[in-house]
């Protein structure tokens, strides 16, 4: 039985449906990420779980306790759920120590010790405790918000885009630190974000949300390599989508014969490859001859961006083209290491590794 069970959750704001039937199961102690474009309803879902708002329909059950059932809802302050908001939402009129200790009773035993301990856990210096929120950097503010929420020993921690206000470098390290911290504390966590890389790297379970419903829920690897449809595929990363005919575990496509992840047979299908599955090997026009099974292309554009280099490759020969005219002239856009990327005009040989995913 899962720790958090959400079923049939609906929420309307006037005529707009923010949530149109959401179901989700979260295992105890696990990390789940909800990812989607802005306005897809992911923050609304978080607010319903936290208890800031009541759903129109549906149930939320946490550890066997019904938190919301239709319009009836347990108020936020009786739920024991921690929340870290986008900008931390620190109380500007209190010191950092008072912010962290906000939920602890004033006369509580060892209150100060507990605050210092929490600050230590989230990696804050002790000297910072006497300061005010506006004197802290964005990353420090987020750490305080986390410590403040952890002070309550919550059963469930909700993170509402807590890293989006941070610099790119800090974001990755904060994400890692927070994930390790919550894991160590054994707190079940739900992260809401619009950043797919963040969602994929943070959680064991990722839910892609669009227009108030989950389009797909699964492990990061499953979602990335076997997305249900083209929209999910492209939302989670760059994708090369090709027409193909499939049979016996292989596809005949403009890129030749490629292994696929199904044994179905269909004359018309669409397969997806991630660009990193395609390898480039330098060769020359002379090297093209005499190898009929091989696939060659010419680099038409090359854009250097430091560590990576984006190259456009136009196919020179099609092994088995069902839609040759359509695809033949559309170059493949591939992101390669900046170190040895081929230059414009060079001839390359294309190889495909791994299996292509077939959209159902």
């Amino acid at each position, binding site marked *: 039985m899962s720790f958090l069970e959400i079923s049939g959750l609906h929420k309307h704001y006037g005529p707009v449906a923010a949530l149109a039937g959401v179901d989700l199961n979260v295992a105890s102690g696990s990390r789940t990420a909800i990812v989607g474009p802005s306005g897809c309803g992911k923050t609304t879902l978080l607010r319903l779980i*936290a208890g800031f708002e009541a759903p129109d329909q549906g149930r939320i059950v946490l550890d066997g306790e019904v938190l919301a059932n239709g319009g009836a809802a347990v108020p*936020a*302050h009786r739920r024991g759920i921690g929340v870290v908001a*986008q*900008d931390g*939402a*620190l109380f500007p*009129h209190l010191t950092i120590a008072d912010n962290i200790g906000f939920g602890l009773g004033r006369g509580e035993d060892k209150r100060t010790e507990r605050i210092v301990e929490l600050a230590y856990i989230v990696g804050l210096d002790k000297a910072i405790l006497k300061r005010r929120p506006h004197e802290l950097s964005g990353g420090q503010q987020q750490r305080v918000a986390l410590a403040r929420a952890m002070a309550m020993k919550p059963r469930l921690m909700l993170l509402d885009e807590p890293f989006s206000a941070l610099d790119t470098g800090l974001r990755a390290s904060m994400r890692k630190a927070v994930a390790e911290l919550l894991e160590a504390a054994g707190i079940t966590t739900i992260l809401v974000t619009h950043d797919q890389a963040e969602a994929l790297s943070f959680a064991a379970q990722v839910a892609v949300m669009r227009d108030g419903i989950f389009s797909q829920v699964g492990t990061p690897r499953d979602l990335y390599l076997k997305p249900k449809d083209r929209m999910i595929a492209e939302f989670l990363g760059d994708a090369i989508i090709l027409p193909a005919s499939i049979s016996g575990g292989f596809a005949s496509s403009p890129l030749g014969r490629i292994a696929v992840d199904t044994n179905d047979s269909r004359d018309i299908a669409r397969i997806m490859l991630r660009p990193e599955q395609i390898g480039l090997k330098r060769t020359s026009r002379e090297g093209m001859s005499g190898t009929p099974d091989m696939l060659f292309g010419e680099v038409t554009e090359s854009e250097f961006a430091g560590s990576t280099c984006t190259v456009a490759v136009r196919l020179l020969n099609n092994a088995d083209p069902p839609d040759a005219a359509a695809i033949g002239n559309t170059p493949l856009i591939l992101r390669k290491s900046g170190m040895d990327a081929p230059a414009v005009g060079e001839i390359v040989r294309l190889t495909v590794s791994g299996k292509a995913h077939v959209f159902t």
Partner: protein
Amino acid sequence: MLPLDGSGTASDLMQSAVDLTRSGLPPKMRRRPQRRAAPWLVTAAVLVSLLALVPLAFIIWIAVQTGWETVYALVFRPRVGELLVNTTLLELLAVPIAIVLSVALAWLTERSDLPGARLWAWLCVAPLAIPAFVHSYAWITMVPGLHGLWAGVLVSVIAYFPFLYLPISAALRRLDPALEDAAAALGLGPWRVFWRVVLPQLRLAICGGSLLVGLHLLAEYGLYVFIRFDTFTTAIVDQFQSTFNGPAANMLAGVLVTCCFVLLGLEVLVRGEERYARVGSGAARYQQRTRLGRATVPSLALLVVTTLLALGVPFVTIGRWLVAGGADVWRLDEIGLALGQTLFLALAGALLATVAAMPMAWISIRAPGPLQRLLEGCNYIVGSLPGVVIALALVTITVRIALPLYQTLFTILVAYALMFLPRALVSLRASIAQAPVELERAASSLGRRPLNALWSTTIRLSAPGAAAGMALVALGIMNELTATQMLAPNGTRTLAMAFWSYSGEIDYASAAPYAFIMVAMSLPLTWLLYIQSKRMAGR
């Protein structure tokens, strides 16, 4: 005939609202790259500020001249102690009651699902359109036996609570709802969230509003005369009427000024240097309104009772007297003359105050620095002094030093300019801040002389703000009387003076048309203030 101080007008609110923004903004937003101001501008600003300090200097000078013995004898006597007790009790009772009332009203109109919240919000501001002495007049004719401390507290709260309501409701609108969510997630129930998160963040608004109410209680005259409650201001005017500008009146004025400074200092102490603005970035979420449920009826009852007391009583009374007086009380020649004189004084005073404020306003936006902050501080302090003190100072100075100027148009206009300079300054500064300095520079680079460049860009663009400021000053002058009575040329009879003289003769029916005209002229400006406060809060 008694003079009165009718400074209880809507426009002072601007000062409080701006006071709020000044302390609310992070320092780096207030400071702009320093730029040198033209010498003639600095000179003008310094002259105006020095002039503004004259009444204060006068009090000190009189004290020094009178000698310690006499000062001691005049200040440390039972009568002063009695007044001090009265004034302190009034402040200690009226201000907290007004705070509690205003917080409750502001929360109900801004953060609850009270039916008709927008209408109620406007009705909570509307009492500002009624001068304090008209409130008092309404109450005393409805309940003739009303007098003493508790009557003073009742009418003071009713007349002045909007000064607290407006900044508090604006602050409530600006609060980041994420903070309340965070507190709820940390296990706090709604009441404790309000107490520990919402209320502390209203501190700035409450401080600013309380200061404004407190200063008005010190300065108000007419209100307390009607209900026979002695304060320093009433005592100073009594003293002035019996002994003209004797040392007794001046020393009382000295004590009153000290009280003002105590209030200013208290406010600074309580307010502190803290920043209550939003921490972090991102757009604030739309605030949710709390469902009142079964509390709806009692909440509505609070608003209905407040509105009845603050608007119903004055309007019913004025209406009743107008009906009772019939057509006879509308002596059109007399009313027309009073209206004409009032409008002339109001417009001339407003023009002078605006012109005087212009150099200061320009410097404070375009070339801020320590000198500018000092000069501006002078102006605000003088603006917080009661009208009676400024009038007393100008009477004494003109009589002793420049007798030909005593009771001339010049002197009364100077008094108005001194009293209402902060209002003009606040509006001007806000509008100059909206005119980008690049335009002025562009005009200079296109060959305009500095003054010409200033005229064709900044002054043109800040004209609407200047006009709003002038209107607020004019409103203040229209309802002012202590200074007008003491300084205006013989034969002057403004609306407020006529109202006061008729009601002093217990001819309440004849006074009613004047009260009606004053309220009718103030209402549109109060509406303007209400709209502005909404806009300042971003909604």
